[in-house]
C-alpha cells in the first residue's frame, strides 16, 4: 500500500485531457521530424557545395531538438515535476532499459554523442569497418551510407565506441582524390611529373582553389606516381579519378613512356 502511495505521488493523474495533450505533442513532434527529414534533404539536394552540406547537417540536429522539446513537454504531464521524482523514475527506467536493450540504448546514446562530436555528418564520405560511402541519413540508432555501387548500408552508431572511422571530407566540400600510375623505371621522371600535374590542372572536375600534388616513389618493379587533387564536388570523386586516369595515361603515352607491367621486369644479366 505504501509503495502504491509513493508511485501515486510520483505520477500525475493521467486523465483524458492529459492523454490527448500527450498524443497531440507526439503527433506534432512526429510530423515535424518527418517533415524535416523529407524536406531538408530534398532541398539540400537541389543545392551544391557548402550550402548542401550545412543543410544536410542540420537534419539530425533539428530532429534531436524536436524530440527534446517533446520530452520536456510530455514528462511534466506524466510525472509530478520534482527533482526526487525525476531521479527516481528516470533512474529506474534507465536501469531497466540498460539491461534489456543494452545495444539499442548504446546506439541511441552513441547517436547523441555523434551529433555533438560530429565524426560524420550527412554529405560526408566515410569508411567504417571497410565500408566506404556517402552518409545520406543519420537516424537515432543507425546511420545510412550509400556506397559507390549504390548499395545502402545501415551502420549502428555504437560502432563509434570501438571502430576507426575514416572521414574523407569532414563536413567540407573538399575531398582529396588520388590516381595512381605505374611506369617502367627507365623514363624522364621530371617530364612525367609535370605532365601529370598538367593533367590535373586541365581536368574540368578540378577544384582549382586546392593544391595539385604529384608524389613519386621508386619501387622494385618501376616508378609509382600518385596524382593527388580535389574535385569541385565530393560526389564527382569517382568520375574525377577516372578522368585523371584516362587523360594521364594518354599524356604519358604521348610522351613515349612505357607503363610497368606484371610480372615485374627482370633485367637480363650480361
Amino acid at each position: 500500500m505504501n509503495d502504491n502511495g509513493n508511485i501515486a505521488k510520483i505520477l500525475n493523474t493521467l486523465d483524458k485531457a492529459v492523454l490527448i495533450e500527450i498524443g497531440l505533442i507526439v503527433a506534432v513532434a512526429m510530423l515535424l521530424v518527418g517533415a524535416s527529414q523529407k524536406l531538408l534533404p530534398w532541398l539540400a539536394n537541389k543545392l551544391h557545395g557548402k550550402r548542401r552540406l550545412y543543410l544536410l547537417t542540420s537534419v539530425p540536429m533539428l530532429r534531436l531538438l524536436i524530440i527534446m522539446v517533446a520530452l520536456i513537454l510530455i514528462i511534466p504531464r506524466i510525472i509530478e515535476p520534482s527533482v526526487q521524482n525525476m531521479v527516481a523514475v528516470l533512474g529506474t527506467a534507465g536501469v531497466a532499459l540498460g539491461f534489456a536493450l543494452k545495444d539499442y540504448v548504446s546506439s541511441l546514446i552513441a547517436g547523441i554523442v555523434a551529433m555533438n562530436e560530429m565524426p560524420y555528418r550527412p554529405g560526408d564520405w566515410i569508411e567504417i569497418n571497410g565500408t566506404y560511402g556517402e552518409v545520406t541519413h543519420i537516424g537515432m540508432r543507425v546511420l545510412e551510407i550509400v556506397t559507390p555501387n549504390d548499395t545502402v548500408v545501415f551502420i549502428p552508431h555504437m560502432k563509434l565506441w570501438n571502430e576507426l572511422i575514416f572521414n574523407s571530407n569532414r563536413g567540407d566540400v573538399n575531398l582529396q582524390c588520388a590516381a595512381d600510375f605505374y611506369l617502367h623505371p627507365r623514363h624522364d621522371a621530371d617530364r612525367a611529373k609535370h605532365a601529370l600535374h598538367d593533367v590535373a590542372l586541365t581536368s574540368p572536375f578540378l577544384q582549382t582553389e586546392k593544391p595539385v600534388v604529384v608524389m613519386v616513389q621508386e619501387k622494385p618493379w618501376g616508378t609509382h606516381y600518385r596524382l593527388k587533387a580535389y574535385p569541385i564536388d565530393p560526389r564527382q570523386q569517382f568520375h574525377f579519378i577516372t578522368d585523371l586516369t584516362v587523360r594521364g595515361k594518354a599524356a604519358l603515352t604521348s610522351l613515349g613512356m612505357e607503363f610497368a607491367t606484371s610480372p615485374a621486369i627482370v633485367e637480363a644479366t650480361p
Partner: protein
Amino acid sequence: MTETKESRQPLWRIVPVADYAMPAIPAQEITTKKMTALWRLIRGNKREAQSPAKAKEELRTLPEERLARLVPTIDWRQAAKELEVTFEDWLGEEDTSKPIRFLIGPPYGGQTEILQAWGEMSGRTMVEPPTPEQILAQDESWLAHWPTQGRVWVLPNLEHCYLRHASGLALVRQLLERAASGQLGRGLIGCDSWAWAYWQKVWSVPQPEVFALQAFDGERLTAYFCQLARAVGGKAFRVRNSKTGNDVLPPADLDEETRPEISSDLTQLAAHSRGNLGIAWKYWRARLRTEPDAVSTEGQDNEMNTATEKPDATQDTVWLAADLDEPVMPVKTGDDVAFVLHALLLHNGLSVDLLARLLPLSHSQVTATLLQLEALKIVKTQGNVWRVAALGYVTIRKFLRDRGYLTDHF
C-alpha cells in the same frame, strides 16, 4: 534634377585592376525594395497600385533598323584613345623592366576590341593567336615568328592561345615566360577575365602591370546612353520607364556641366551587368520598347524632322520595359552543362570538336548539350564557334559560382 556643378568622371577609364570598382546596388535602394515588397504583401498586392504607365501589351519591340539607329554598336575607339593616354608614359619609357602590360576584361567587356582599335590607330603590330593544332602540338614556330623587336606588339586575345588540355598549356607558358623576361620586346596582351582567373592558377607569377576598363556604374552608364540618345542625327529621344513613367535618361537640354540625377533603372542595370558595358548595352537594347503608332509613322517622322526642329513628344519616346525575361538554366543540370559552359567561358568560345576534345564528353553529348542551351538562349553560335550569350552571362556566372567552379573577378 540636381543643379550642382560637380566634376564628372570621364566616360572611359583604363585603371590598374586593383582599382576596378564593381558597381553595387545602394543599400538604401535595397531597403526601399524590401519595404515595398512588405507593403505589397500587407496590402494584398492591389492592382490599382501597380498599374503601369504603359501596359506590356501596348508596347512593341523596336524594329532592328530603328534599334541600330537609336542604340548603335559600341565604339571602342574612344576607349582605345583613353588607353593611349594612360599608357603614354610606359610607351615612351626606355626602361624595359616592365616589358608587358595586360588588359583584362569580362566577356563582352570589349578588351579585345579596344586593343584591336588601338593597334590600328597607332599602327602597332598585331599578333594572331596560334591555331588549335599549333597549341596542342606545342608548335614553337608560332613564337619563333614573333614580330621584330623594337616595336610594341599587341596580342589582343590570350584566351585563344591555350586550350585546357594536358598538351594545351605549354605554349602560353613559354610565351608568358619569354614576354615577362623581355625576350619578346614590349607588348600589350589582352585577356578575358575567365582565362585570366584560370591562368592565375596555372602560372602564378605576380603581374603588377594589369589594367582593365573601369566598370560602368549608374552615372557612367547614364552618360553613355545620353551620348547615344543625343547622337541620333542630332535628334534627341526620350526614354521612359514603362512601369513608373519616369524618365530614365536626363533631359536632352540639360547643360553638359550639370551633374544629372541617376535613374535607379540605370543604377540597377549597372549592378546587374556587373559594370560590363557590353552586357549593359545588350540589356538596354533588349528592354527598349515602342508604341505601335510610333513604329508605323517612323518613316514619315524621319522625313519631316530635321536637326533643328523640335521633336514630337509621342514619336520620340521609347519605353524601357520594367523587366526582361532573362534566360534561365534548365531545371535539372548535370555536370555536362556546367562543363560546357565553363569551358566556353575559359576560352571565350570554342567549336564542338574542341569541346569534345577538352571535356570527358562525346561529340554527340556536347552537341546535345549545346542545342539544349541554345534553345534556352544561354549560348549562341557564330560560324562553328559557340559562345555564351550576352543576356545569359549573368545567369551562367551565378550558376557556376553556386556550384563551386572557378569564376572571374569581374
